[in-house]
């Protein structure tokens, strides 16, 4: 099966990768270390729409999709 080389925008930066299955879950796995994924309370939005964790697998992603991956941080 031919792999797809694509550009995504993750947290404001271009991210180029080859994905066999262009799902959000695969993209996040590629972008992050799996340890981080399991330990952090992270949330994800694609093109300004939050995608619930249970839907990451079925969420297809496309060329130049804008992905935001957020986590808790210090705040007042």
């Amino acid at each position, binding site marked *: 099966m031919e792999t797809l080389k694509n550009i995504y925008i993750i947290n404001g930066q271009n991210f180029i990768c080859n994905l066999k299955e262009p799902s959000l879950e695969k993209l996040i796995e590629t972008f992050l270390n799996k340890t981080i994924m399991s*330990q952090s309370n992270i*949330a994800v939005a694609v093109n300004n729409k939050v995608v619930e964790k249970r839907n990451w697998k079925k969420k297809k992603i496309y060329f130049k999709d804008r992905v935001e991956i957020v986590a808790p941080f210090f705040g*007042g």
Partner: protein
Amino acid sequence: MSKDELLIDGKKFTSRLIMGTSLFPNLEVLNKSLLSSGTEIITLSVRRLNLSNKKGFLSHIKKKYTLLPNTAGCFTKKEAIITAELAREMLTTNWIKLELISDEEMLLPDPIELYEACKYLVKNKFKIFAYCSDDPILCKRLEDIGCEIVMPLISPIGSGLGIRNEHNLEIIRKICSGKVFVDAGIGKPSDASKIMEMGFDGVLLNSSVARSLNPEDMANAMRLAVISGRLGYKSGFIEKSKLALSSTTFKGKISNF
């Protein structure tokens, strides 16, 4: 002392002090200060994941607190809504401290964007802690549309200027029947105490502790100030009089030399 629990969204709390987690010199001081403050609720922000921080913010916090995410840094309704939705997904909480600022210099809340964002988020089952200006009508309107807690500032964020418009605060307390906290502007423990004496339900603060010379002790001072002010308010103050009212009777004194 009778029980004076604070009920928020069906959850009981004994502390009326919500603490921010920003600007502390280091994590050890942050943890000690949170402990010293007696707080049960802490605020945090929603930020892009930092890949160099492998453990994540929450793993650095030693005690289990109820988490109140904020929308700090948002300028528009759209930005605030997506941030609130991300926070809900990130922490599995529908609590959000809604901050919508209008400028970078004074960080003053934008009442129009805030009101619109609140309307949308209330409809979407969020429990909103609305950080707002000290405008009594705005506070009342935010309460009326279903915000869980209305949180007027007393002066700009991080200014430490304390109460600038006591009269407005008195009106807010009078016309808002729900829970009202004060958020932003507290500089000294006496500010926190005064707020509580005025009958407000609690205080949210950060800079006044984090930027002090001794955050752990200042956190304790704030804890005591909030308790003291609340206890005073609940005990009922005496009526003010323009004339002196002697506390010791004149009857039986030796006189008249």
